């Protein structure tokens, strides 16, 4: 579990000093996220180097985004050479529903059914499936997201039903990649870029609750009725 703060985040850059101040406290007991290193650590490391070095022309953020974009393109191209049925089975094995796969491909569920029965897909649709397959592979391996399908299906902000699947369906692989890879990213900033009017759209005094028969129901939130 990654801790969302560290002692550096509480202060702005401190005033420089000629005295080398030393933190004498012992490093804390590490969480699993502390133990597990991932590609993003490179970004953190180069951020420090950028502050010190005049030789680096790009910020680590830009380099990171560019390299991921390139990685997505090259991995997509690799997968696009696979049989369509194989890519579809791969997504199914990951846990996606056929309805979601159709949505990600931008086609109807019957169309996907026909693909599974051997009909061919257009080049554009194949590319879309390959791109989704590539995305899932990258976030699973690079960012150590254990269950990509679950991650994509789960709303990433508590106040809006928007999921990573929604980002991908609307071709915002860039935002989904940022969401996957950056522990410090604020989901709200992703939401703002994806749906600037999300607050108005999803503001409601209606909530879901469990009725006495054990089934869900809707009601006005307490205090709003």
């Amino acid at each position, binding site marked *: *579990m990654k*801790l969302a703060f560290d002692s550096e985040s509480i202060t702005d850059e401190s005033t420089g000093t000629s005295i080398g101040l030393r933190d004498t*406290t*012992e490093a804390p007991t590490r*969480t*699993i996220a502390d133990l*597990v290193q991932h590609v993003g650590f490179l970004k953190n490391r180069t951020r420090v180097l950028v502050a010190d070095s005049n030789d680096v022309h790009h910020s680590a953020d830009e380099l990171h985004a560019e390299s991921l974009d390139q990685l997505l393109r090259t991995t997509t191209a690799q997968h696009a050479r696979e049989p369509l049925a194989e890519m579809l089975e791969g997504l199914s094995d990951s846990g996606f529903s056929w309805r979601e796969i159709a949505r990600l491909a931008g086609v109807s569920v019957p169309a996907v059914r026909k693909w599974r029965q051997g009909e061919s897909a257009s080049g554009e649709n194949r590319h879309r499936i390959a791109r989704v397959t590539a995305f899932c592979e990258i976030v699973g391996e690079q960012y150590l997201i254990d269950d990509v399908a679950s991650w994509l299906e789960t709303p990433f902000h*508590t106040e809006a039903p928007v999921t990573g699947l929604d980002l991908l369906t609307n071709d915002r692989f860039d935002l989904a990649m940022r969401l996957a890879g950056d522990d410090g990213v604020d989901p709200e900033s992703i939401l703002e870029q994806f749906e600037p009017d999300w607050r108005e759209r999803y503001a409601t005094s209606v*909530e879901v609750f469990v009725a006495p028969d054990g089934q869900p129901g809707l009601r006005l939130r307490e205090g709003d009725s």
Partner: protein
Amino acid sequence: MTPTGRPPYPNAPLALTVLEIRYPELEEGVGRRAQQHMREALRGRLPLIENIKEEQIELAIGAPMPASVQRRSFPRFTTRDRTTALVVKEQALAIETTEYEGWEENFRPLIAQVVTAFAHISPPDGLLRIGLRYIDEIRVPEIMALPGDWRPYIDEHLLAPADPGFIPASLRPTTWQGLVQYRTASDSTLTVRYGPQDGHAVNPRGSTRRKDAPDPGPFFLLDSDSYWQAGDEVPEFDADWIIDTCNSLHEPTREFFRIAATDKLRDEVFDAPRRHGT
């Protein structure tokens, strides 16, 4: 966390509990056979296993040298609801949970099961450090913005930097973090980081799942880290000794939590019905 280590509080503030054990490097890491044996031994508690791949990239900025990449893999065991996880690496293992259900009832038995299996299957050459960490996010409904007036809820001694009796009116605290270390035994320490924070201390979207994570907002952090560290001698990796040490490490964290929280906090917040994230 609770005074008795039991979970009587329906609205406990504990966000994450971690046990980390560090040891001399396992030369081959945890091999596949050892992973399988561990899986069998832990199947009842941690039935899921994933292989985590790690890449370490070394860059030299400004020098015409190629980047070097080291690739490793190690197992991660989890419960089906992913609220509890164990990771075993070549120099340390960590058990963490977001659903702490008591020291004696749940977490200590899990520790015992893990270290006993590990000692039997792939014992390291010794022990370097054992750390037990509790991270509490104490949230009070009435406090909706930082810094907040925590005086009714947190012992005043932890609020000194913002005490109006201490701070001149020209200085308005926005946030602070205190850090104190206590010697609890000749080779053990309790470090507590505390203070008002915003958002979350424990990532609600981390790989160890937080059920019903609260909405982001102001909270008072109590991050209690109780650890033993090897001195001149490095003891053997002995499961019974580790479990006894963990028991000893648990006591000071429990005590600090007890004195940090006021009765009002216990009665009106911890004992209130559990609030769910929206």
